């Protein structure tokens, strides 16, 4: 049984356990909607859950009742909304194992600020994966002899986090030469998924983790405390001045491997912070990802490398 299933209510768990083990382990996404069938996505296929298989038609598929959806929401946050309310304001929270739970529903807004959810109407469970060797291609092209700064970008679900994780693991293990001292700034608890002080995912022998801390603060602490050679952080791009300044300040010494949401290089440059970072030439390489693969590599100036 996939470890995430143990967090779900028994009825949902029983439904998902009807899937063959190989499908369970390759699950990428589970979409639960109140009054609708369960929609599943694996690396190779997608469809509605029907009698232990993926069906293209929702007819006769198991339907998630609104009550069951609510139970699933509270079970996933272990009946502790107070622990995830800050994350929920951004529309998601992370559960042990680094899996991300996106939440849709009626929002509670006060003075223009999201305070929480009145009732969830859908849950999008994105399962974290560890793919050993996923970053091998990047290592050969971007880390041959030098420690470069790279920005991985792509649409949601393109494999940015998986690749960043493997990049940290491989460099930390000395796959590109000498072992690199890596500091992972895991603001959302997805990159390392710390459990009792130990990363759930393999991040290599020379990796230190700051978890569940705003990137700006963690960055400052990592630079002061650990003298890292490479900083790894997920999903930069929020209009956060502190983050931008700190990232710019790092240009002198420490390499950075980060990820950002953007479907294209032009889209990337439309985001103010990312544009500033590009103008400051913080990153040596920009890598466009799609479906877990590197589709395009650009140099700091924006020129595509053939």
């Amino acid at each position, binding site marked *: 049984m996939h470890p995430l299933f143990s967090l779900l209510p028994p009825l949902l768990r029983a439904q998902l356990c009807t899937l063959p083990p190989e499908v369970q382990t390759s699950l990428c996404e589970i979409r639960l909607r109140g009054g609708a069938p369960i929609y599943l996505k694996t690396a190779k296929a997608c469809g509605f859950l029907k009698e232990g298989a993926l069906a293209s038609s929702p007819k006769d598929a198991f339907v998630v009742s609104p009550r069951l959806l609510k139970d699933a929401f509270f079970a996933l946050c272990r009946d*502790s909304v107070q622990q995830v309310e800050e994350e929920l304001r951004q529309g998601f929270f992370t559960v042990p194992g680094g899996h991300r739970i996106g939440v849709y529903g009626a929002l509670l807004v006060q003075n223009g600020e999201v305070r929480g959810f009145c009732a969830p109407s859908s849950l999008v469970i994105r399962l974290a994966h560890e793919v050993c060797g996923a970053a091998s291609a990047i290592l050969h092209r971007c880390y041959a002899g030098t420690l470069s700064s790279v920005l991985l970008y792509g649409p949601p679900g393109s494999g940015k986090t998986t690749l960043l994780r493997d990049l940290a693991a491989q460099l930390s293990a000395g796959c590109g030469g000498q072992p690199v001292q890596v500091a992972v700034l895991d603001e959302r608890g997805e990159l390392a998924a710390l459990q009792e002080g130990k990363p759930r995912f393999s991040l290599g022998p020379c990796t230190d983790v700051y978890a569940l801390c705003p990137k700006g603060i963690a960055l400052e602490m990592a630079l002061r405390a650990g003298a890292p050679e490479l900083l790894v952080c997920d999903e930069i791009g929020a209009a956060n001045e502190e983050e931008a300044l700190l990232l710019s300040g790092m240009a002198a010494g420490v390499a950075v491997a980060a990820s950002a949401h953007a479907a294209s290089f032009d889209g990337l440059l439309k985001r103010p912070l990312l544009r500033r970072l590009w103008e400051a030439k913080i990153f040596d390489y920009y890598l466009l990802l799609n479906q877990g693969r590197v589709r395009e590599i650009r140099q700091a100036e924006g020129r595509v490398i053939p």
Partner: protein
Amino acid sequence: MNPPSLGTVCGFLLAVGIGFWQGEVPLRRSALLAAYEVFLARLTTELLYAPATGELLASLAADPACAPLLFLPRCLEAWKTLPLHAAWEQALAETPLPLTVQERGWFALPGRVLGQCPAEEQRQTFSRLRQSVAQAADAARQSALGKAKLFRMLGVLGGFAWLIVWW
């Protein structure tokens, strides 16, 4: 004068026993409400630090000041297989509580609120609830001793009445 029969002595003891047993009810109710007030006060304070609900309930269940709240350990046990709201309801239903209907409603409320909304909302709800419980606990404390004495006395008097009639 003949000694009293075994039945007469048993009747006397039964009446006295019932009086003392009934005398314990207001004392237990008072202790229960006082413990619940402490529970709500600690809950309101602890929620400032947004702890996990499981850890919070476990620490409160182990707190000697909350010992009269026998439904707490039962709720933690039931929570392993049920959602929290259902576990809370089940634990309350399984625990005999000498409470009025309104007080039962107060005891049921955390099951529907704890861990189900942002911390500040929970704190406000528990803070308001605590005020009502504090008033009821005060009133219960003041009347508990008097009622306990009355029930015990009635038990003893009933026992003597039984002796007079049957001896």
